[in-house]
């Protein structure tokens, strides 16, 4: 039983394949990704998440973009757009953007730190199982990289009518996107679940 698993997409029962680090274990019937073992998965994910939290702090606190036209300058931080949407009576939209681009990514980074740092020293903090469960459920709802594309589109749109001045936060945000992508790629949830097993 311990050496078997079922594919989450087609339910095929199969032996847990032994896959070298850096390769992907695929379901033999439907080719779903079962898991991807990574070299130094814990260390890498931890390092990238720590970096991510620092970049995040810069990205939310410094000016993001400034718009300059005919002597007017309008500066915006990352949270300005959500505040303005709220003032315009679009509170549900403001909430949605805040959750997907501000809160969920932060919760994910902090949770991973809380779960993985103790795991590295062979410990489990209370609530780690529940937290990792939420991290995996919330993962598709963190959309910072989509926001990045939105920034690029807006910059091109606005470049016609005004000068756009990128701020400190924008550079931090760009780096953060890469760091988050790296963190997602280095996390091996299969390994984490084995270590977090509450029955052990």
């Amino acid at each position, binding site marked *: *039983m311990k050496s*078997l*698993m*079922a*594919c*989450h*997409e*087609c*339910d*095929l*029962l199969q032996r847990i394949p032994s896959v070298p680090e850096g390769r992907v274990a695929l379901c033999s*019937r*439907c*080719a*779903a990704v079962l*898991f991807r073992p990574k070299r130094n998965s814990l260390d890498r994910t931890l390092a990238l998440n720590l970096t991510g939290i620092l970049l995040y702090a810069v990205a939310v606190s410094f000016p993001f*973009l400034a*718009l300059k*036209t*005919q002597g*007017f300058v*309008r500066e*915006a931080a990352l949270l*300005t*757009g*959500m505040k*303005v*949407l709220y003032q*315009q009576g*679009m509170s*549900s*939209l403001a909430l*949605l*953007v805040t959750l997907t*681009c501000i809160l969920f990514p932060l919760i994910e980074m902090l949770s991973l730190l809380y779960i993985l740092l103790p795991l590295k020293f062979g410990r489990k903090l209370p609530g780690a*199982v*529940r937290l*990792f*469960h939420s991290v995996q459920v919330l993962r*598709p*709802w963190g*959309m910072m990289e*989509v*926001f990045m*594309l*939105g*920034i690029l*589109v*807006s910059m*091109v*749109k*606005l470049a*016609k*009518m005004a000068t756009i001045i990128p701020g400190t936060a924008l550079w931090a945000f760009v780096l953060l996107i890469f760091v988050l992508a790296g963190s997602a790629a280095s996390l091996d*949830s*299969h390994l984490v*679940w084995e270590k*977090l097993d*509450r*029955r052990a």
Partner: protein
Amino acid sequence: MKPAPLTAREANLIGCRLCHLLIPLPQEQDHCPRCGARLHQRQPNSIARCWALLIAAMLFYLPANLLPITISSALGTRQSDTILSGVLYLLNSGSWAIALVIFVASLFVPLMKMVILVFLLVSVQLRSSWRPKDRTRLYRLTELVGRWSMVDIYVVTIMVALVRLGALANVEAGPGAAYFAAVVILTMFAAESFDPRLIWDRMEDRNE
């Protein structure tokens, strides 16, 4: 002939969808002993739930495209833009690359996603055995690209933050934006509630 592939359900087991642990039936508790996720051999009411969310998304798709998503004013003139008129404006002003991004993310992807989900639902309900691997691939695709539809919402967020120059130029979010966000969220939930294992269940019946 090759023996029929054995699934967890046939073997009286449940594979946890979140952490991949195999749990024997009967199981006293309905949560995975390792990760705490709810255990189901198949997602309960997957088809009905997916249809409901999908139909709601289709209904919202109309106001999302007919109502303005931004209302911009400049020097006394007001202009309302829907998603489509925004794409056409970009195309006419020569920013075809950006027009393409918005067209794909805001019009093409949500529509394709709804068409694919309808196709998958109907094929499962008709107990079709047509190319299960490709249908699973289609399902994976809808899960993967759905989030990118949010890009237009984020563009609106950034525009309202920056274009606040009083009488000179101002941008406001229109009601279409809220409907459009609802479409994206509903289709994401619809894709999540669809259980791809239903596509494969038919294969075992045929092998019997």
